[in-house]
Structures are given as structure tokens and as C-alpha cells.
């Protein structure tokens, strides 16, 4: 790295540290002192016993709601407060808890199917993944665990797919399960998070393959990216579903029997020659072309 770039990089990081530090110093002993005195707490009288939750709740997104009090979710707690019996207070959980959450969150576009969706049928409800009282959540959206860690605890098969050599980089930097999946609904059984126009999430990053093209291939006609690619990870280069490119192609493009889309007779290509073993050496525009019916450019 040239010296100039070192200097610039160092300057950026120093600014970052200084800026964040200013915010930290401005807060002073904020962690130790709740923003409001106990006597004025909107969480009285619950904070008499649950002082830890009351102290941290102002940082919770739910605290933004002017009408948000303990009773908003837990109902009338006067008997519980008087007698201290846990059975006398409503603790939203399971399906009933999800209903309560959906009372406010249900109108968001992402919540297309929550009450009886795939997660709900597996007895996975809001509180399974979200920590409502968490003062310093490990992640955005009050998630209980680091990005994606909750998902893979129930989906270890999918986690192991990311351990294959040709895989999306899950977890350590930018990508998370919910980059492509919508756990609250989504499209199809995989609960895919579609783009604004309903496209598969692959096209959010691989936009140059979106088209529409005059000469479409699979996407936009039938099937989708997953017809040829493993979305999480694969043993095969380019996350293909097959080890050899020619087999990916010929399994659809073989004229047996007639009647299937794309099952035209293949050209007289001699697959014994290396130049024909990789179909994409010539059919380079394999995702679609505007100028070549045979996807040659």
C-alpha cells in the first residue's frame, strides 16, 4: 500500500474513533444512571421490583411510543404487584404473544404471513428470536443473538452449506440470513425477501442479470437462479448445481422426449474436445442477451 493511502486510511480511522468517542463522553455515566428519576418513571410501580428492566428500557425502540408502558403488553398488573405471584401477570409468549406483537407490527409490508407461517407452524414465534426487554441487544431489531446465529441454531443444514468452498460469506462481515430471507413471511417455502418489484433477492446484488432481455434464459421464463446455482454454498465453482458445466446445460437441453421447453436437439458439439466441454466459452451471455438468440454475446 503506498504511503499516501496509509495516511488517508489512518486519518479516516482516527476520525471515526474521535467521533464515536465524543458521543460516548457526552453520555458520561449514562449506563449507570437511567434517564429519568425513579419517582417520575413511566414504569411505576413495576420498577420497584423490576428496576433493571426499567433502567434499560429507555434505550429500547418500544420506549419511543408515548403510550408505551408495562401495561401495554403485560396488561393490568395491580394484582401481581400486590401479591407478587408470577401467575397473576400476563407474559406474552407463543402464538398469543405473536398476536400482541402483530397488533402494531402486522401492517408492515414484510409481515405477509406470520400467524400461520412456516415459523409459526414450527412453534417459532416472535419471542423465540427477539428479546423485547434487551437493553443492549446484540443486533438490530432486538435480536437475541448475533446476526444469523438464531437462524442457524434451528437450520444447521443450511449453516453447513455455507461451510462449502464456494459460498456466500455469511456472518463475519456484511451478509446475514435476512439479507435474502424474510423470517416474517416472504415468498414461497423459503420465505425469500423479494425486491421492490418482486424479484428474487439474488438480483439485488447481481442487478446486471435482471434484464429484461430480448432473449431470456431461465430467469423470467421458467425457474429462477436456483435452477442452476446453489444459493448458500456449493462444492462446485460458481455455486453451480453440477460439477461440470456441460451437464448443467445438457440435463435440460436434450431432445428426449420432445415437448419440454428448451429440449431442442443439441448441435454437433464434440464434448471430447476441451473447447466444447465448457458451454459458456461460447454461450457467454448465459443469463440473457439482447443481441444473440443463442446467448453468444
Amino acid at each position, binding site marked *: 500500500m503506498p504511503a499516501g493511502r496509509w495516511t488517508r*486510511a489512518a486519518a479516516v480511522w482516527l476520525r471515526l474513533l474521535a467521533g464515536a468517542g465524543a458521543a460516548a463522553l457526552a453520555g458520561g455515566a449514562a449506563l449507570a444512571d437511567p434517564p429519568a428519576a425513579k419517582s417520575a418513571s413511566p414504569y411505576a410501580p413495576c420498577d420497584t421490583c423490576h428496576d433493571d428492566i426499567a433502567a434499560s428500557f429507555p434505550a429500547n425502540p418500544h420506549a419511543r411510543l408515548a403510550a408505551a408502558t408495562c401495561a401495554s403488553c403485560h396488561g393490568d398488573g395491580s394484582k401481581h404487584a400486590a401479591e407478587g405471584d408470577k401467575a397473576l401477570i400476563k407474559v406474552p409468549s407463543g402464538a398469543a404473544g405473536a398476536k400482541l406483537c402483530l397488533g402494531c407490527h402486522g401492517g408492515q409490508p414484510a409481515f405477509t404471513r406470520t400467524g400461520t407461517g412456516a415459523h409459526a407452524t414450527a412453534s417459532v414465534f416472535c419471542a423465540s428470536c427477539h428479546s423485547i426487554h434487551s437493553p443492549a441487544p446484540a443486533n438490530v431489531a432486538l435480536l437475541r443473538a448475533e446476526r444469523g446465529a438464531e437462524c442457524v441454531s434451528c437450520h444447521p443444514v443450511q449453516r453447513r452449506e455455507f461451510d462449502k468452498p464456494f459460498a456466500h460469506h455469511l456472518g*463475519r462481515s456484511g451478509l446475514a440470513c435476512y439479507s435474502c430471507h424474510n423470517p416474517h413471511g416472504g415468498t414461497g417455502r423459503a420465505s425469500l425477501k423479494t425486491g421492490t418489484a418482486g424479484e428474487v433477492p439474488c438480483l439485488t446484488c447481481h442487478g446486471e442479470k435482471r434484464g429484461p432481455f430480448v432473449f431470456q434464459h431461465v430467469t423470467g421464463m421458467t425457474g429462477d437462479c436456483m435452477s442452476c446455482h446453489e444459493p448458500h454454498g456449493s462444492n462446485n465453482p460458481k455455486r453451480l448445481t453440477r460439477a461440470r458445466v456441460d451437464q448443467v446445460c445438457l440435463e435440460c437441453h436434450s431432445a428426449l422426449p420432445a415437448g419440454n*421447453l428448451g429440449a431442442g436437439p443439441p448441435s454437433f458439439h464434440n464434448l471430447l474436445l476441451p473447447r466444447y466441454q465448457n458451454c459458456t466459452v461460447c454461450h457467454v451471455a448465459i443469463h440473457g442477451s439482447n443481441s444473440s438468440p443463442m446467448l453468444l454475446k
Partner: protein
Amino acid sequence: MRHRHRTPALALLLLALLAASAGAQTTHFSLGAGYQWLDVSGNEDMYKSQLNERQGLALQELSLTVAAPSGGLFDRLRVDASGFGAEPEGRFRLSVGRSGMYDLRISYFRARAFSALPTLANPFLDQGIVPGQHTQNRVLDNLDMDLQLFPGAVITPLVGYSRYHVDGPGTTTYHVGENEYRLDSHLAETTHEARAGVGIHLDGFQATVVEAWRAFHDTDAYALAPGGGAGNNPAPVLGQDQSLDSFNRRDRSDGSYAVTTGSFAGTVSDRLRFTGSFVKTDFQSSLAEDEQLSGSLVSFAIARFFGGLGQQTHARTSAPDWRGAARVEAEPVDGLEASGGYARSHRDFDGLALISSLYTGTVNYAGLDPRNLATLLTSTTALERNQTTWDGMLSTRNLGPLRLWADVARVDEELTVTPDAAEIVVPGGQGGRFDRTIRRWSAGATATVDGLKLALDWKDDHAPDSIVRTDYRDLKRWRLRADWTAGKLLRVVGTAEKLDGDNPAEGIDYDFRARHWGVDVDLTALEALGVRLGYAKFKADSAVTIVVPQNFTLEPSLYTEDGEEKSASASYKIGPVSLEGGWSRFTNSGDLGLSLDRAFAHCDVELTAALGATLVFDRYRYRDDLLAISNFDANRYAFLLRWHE
């Protein structure tokens, strides 16, 4: 490149100063950053294709939550960032708002996409020449911003903006003159999307309607790669050597269209809820392409040798698309839930390409009749696709620890394709009408007894017709999951999955199966000591009859995977020191035999209440059983400082 590094840092600085000036209270702050060193030996291209870490400064994690007194510019601010610098991907998120006034969310994602693989598009692999002829080294930048005004009010206006950009060089090939030539390429694609809408929040009914305007611009530039003029095929064609002396092509694709989306959710009573969504888009694109080349070439299409080609293409596509879905969820009696849904999607697609070509310096195969030759090709394509889905589900949760559910669905697909659109391999009337109906039954059960949670589900799909040859006619899947927790001491999670599919139609004989099973054990013997063990097996086999192109004989296309993964890790905390180490081995003895060994060791020391330091070592060892030239070893060493409040 410089502004890409600087923008997130400046944004953080600005926000932090705003927080300070607002008298804000930081309720959560952590920053982990440092420097990492790399030691890579072996195939560096393969390393970058798989991992693509770099040596240098790295932001491991930044998280900042700020609560401010009400009445200021904001009363809540949350910033998260990770991965910028030496890591291949980075993400920045900002969520800031003031109760009742606004809610602003900004996210930025940056990724480096590198690919230079030995086996991909490589006709010279047997000569030891790597990588293949298709490579790329691109940078992706995605920015999303959404602002909601007056959150919590009955009417909440929404505005948003997104920008997706991918840019970078690569290499590719071009088939012209009965040969393939290596090209250098450069892609720059930008999509802008602005949106505005409104949310409606009534008691028991919520809806959102958003109108978006999207525009994209894509530029691809190609030129003959140095040394690429000889092509991949050294043999003369019709007795004449083929070569390319010069090549330049520039493609410009543009498109702009509107996207209308809507969603709603409502409750009639505590026992009845309904949801729905709608998307309508008029996808459009246009292309202008200019290509100029010269050399000594032959064209079977015009049955002549030629010395140059100038080609202009103008193309236009239109693809109006809409999809809608509605769903009702009911709980007729306590513990019994029922839901039903309907979804329909429709796409009309029309494409037109006008390709004008001027072949210069042509002669016939006998070397006679010299002249220039112009051709004009008009090609139109069209398809119409409809899909309708009905589904219904019943579930019960009033059987003690047992929960049962059953689901039935029917999917009708209709596809009408003009012959042109289907002629990817060889021209020849491959269009037509294709219908497929899938009937799906699925059911499952979950049971929770003390610390044991069991889940079993089954799915059976049946489709009497197939559209493409790899469509299944029957697909069956079984999944079993057991999760046993013994207090804080032990957690054991076991999973098993069985998948069988086929299409027994004569001449297809498609058959595939997959098996996965695995077990993970978390043992916390002491509060300070944790151990994790994992083991998994997976196996996949598929076969489908294909036509061998060179002699038109039939043979099965076989594909197998036979994999195993073992892993172990442990963590130990003693005073201010935390130690963590682990190892895993992944092997596949299927078609592409390979092994991956990973190991890591982290040592974390709390220097003060707010400051810590971490030493990191990661090892990654890739071995290809058949192609030793792919192998590499990579070690990563990092020193990180963590500051947290």
C-alpha cells in the same frame, strides 16, 4: 475508491457529533477494529475466489445506541457497521428517529466480487493454463434509505431511495468467425430507485401503498485481450487460418419504469386476520450496441471468408408484470388455527432486436467474388406466464405439548413461449404452450416435553407434467429435528433430512436423492468453560438421461456428493482473559473430491473496563483431489482493539 472508504466514516463522525451536541446519552457503544495480516500460499486466485480477505485495516464491529432527551433533532439513534476495510464485504446501518416525527433508516452494503477459477470456461486446463477465460474483479455498492414521517399517526408518508452499483473489469470470450477469442471487459451497472408512498394505520387495519420509479444504466466495454487474437482453436477452418486483429464493442442498456406496491393487514376480531399484497411493474429495457472487428475469419452463416465486421444492434424489451396475494388467518376455537391463501402472478414479455451487420472484404470459399455484404436481422420474442396458487392450512396447539399442522396447496403454471425465445441451443421451433400443475401436501408435528423439543415434517409434491426436463413429477421430503437442553449444562441438536424426487418419463428418467444428518453438542461444564462438538454427513445422487452431442447416443448424466463435516471448539474465560479455539474438517468424495480444513484461535484480554484487545489466528486449507493447481493455504493474523461502554 477513496470516497468509498470515507463516506461511512464521515457519516459516523457526523452522527456522533450530533449526538454529543444534543446532550445525548450513549447507552451502548462498542468498537472493534485493528489490522490483519495474510499469509497465502498456493493458488492465490482460488483464495480470492473463495475468501478474498486482504491485508490491512479492518473494522470488525461498531455499534452505537444513543438515547437523547425528547424535543431534539432525534431521541433515538442506532448505528451498526462491520466488515469495512480488509474484509470482502462491509455493511453500515443507521436508524435514527424522533417519536411521532420521523423514522429514518439508511443501510449501505459494499462487497468485492472476485472470480478467477481454474476450471471455469477453460479449454486449456489440460495444458496447465489457469485461470479460465471468464474472470471478474468487481465492486458492489448498495445504498438504501427510507424515511417514514409521523410514525404512530394515522397517516404516515414514506419516501425512499436506493442505489445499486456494480463496477469492475473482467475477462470473457467471444465466438466469431468459428473461433473463440479472449476479451477484456469492463462492466458498470447502476440502478436508481426513488419511492414515495403512504402508510395508513387505523384501529384493526393497516395498509401501505408505495410508488417507485426505477432507472438503470448498464455499460459494457470489450476489447481484444493482449495475445488473444489467435483464438482458442488453432486449426485452420476450410483450409484457412483464423485470427482476430482488432475488436471493440460497447453495449449500453437503459431502462426506466414504475413499480407499484401495496400491502394491507387487518383484524376483524381477535380470531380473524387478513393480509394481502400487490406488485405491479412495467419492466422495460433498451440496448444499443456497436461492434467493430477485423481479422481473417470465416462465417458459416453467410458461407464466406471475411476480413471485417461492423455490427449495430438496437433492442427493446417490455415485460409488464403483476402479482397479488391475499390470505385469511382464523382461530375458530381456542388453539385451532386455519388459514387460506390465494396468489396469482402474470407476466407478458415482448422483445425486439434489430441487428445490422456489414461484413467487409468477403470472398466465397473458393476465394472468388470479392465484395462487402450487409445483412439485416429482425428478431422478435414473446412469452406469457401465469401462475396461480391456492393453499390452505390447519394447525392445532391445544393438545398439550403437541402441535400438529397440515397444509395443502395447488400451483398452476401456464407458459406460452414463441420459438425465438426458446432457441438458445439450436433454432428449430421449440416454443409452444407449457402447463404444469403441482399438488402439494405437507404435515408436521412438534412436541415439547421438559427440555426436549421434537419436530417432524413431511412434504409430498406431485406434478403430472414437466416444463423443463429437470422438473420433478414426484418429490418427497422428510425432516426430523430434536433439540434437547439440560439446563445450562448441555444442549444437543440433531437434524435429519431425506429428499427423493423423480421424473420417470421415457427418455428423461430423472432421479435424485439427498440425505443429510448431523448432530451438534454444546457443553458448558463450567460457567467459564464451553465446548462445542459437531458432526454431519450429507449425500446427494442424481441421474438424468442426456443426449451426447457428438454422436447422439444416450447416457445418464450422473452427479454425486458424499460429504462429511467434523468440528470442535472450546472457549475458556479466566479473569480478564478469554480464550477460544476451534477446528473443522469438511470433505467431499463426490464428483469433485476436496477437503477444507479450518482452524482458529482467539485470545481476548480486557485491559480496562472499557478497553480490550484481541489476537486472532485463522487457518484455511483447501485441497482439490483432482486438480492440485487449485490448492492453497491461507493464514490470517489480526490484532484488534475493542472499546465498549
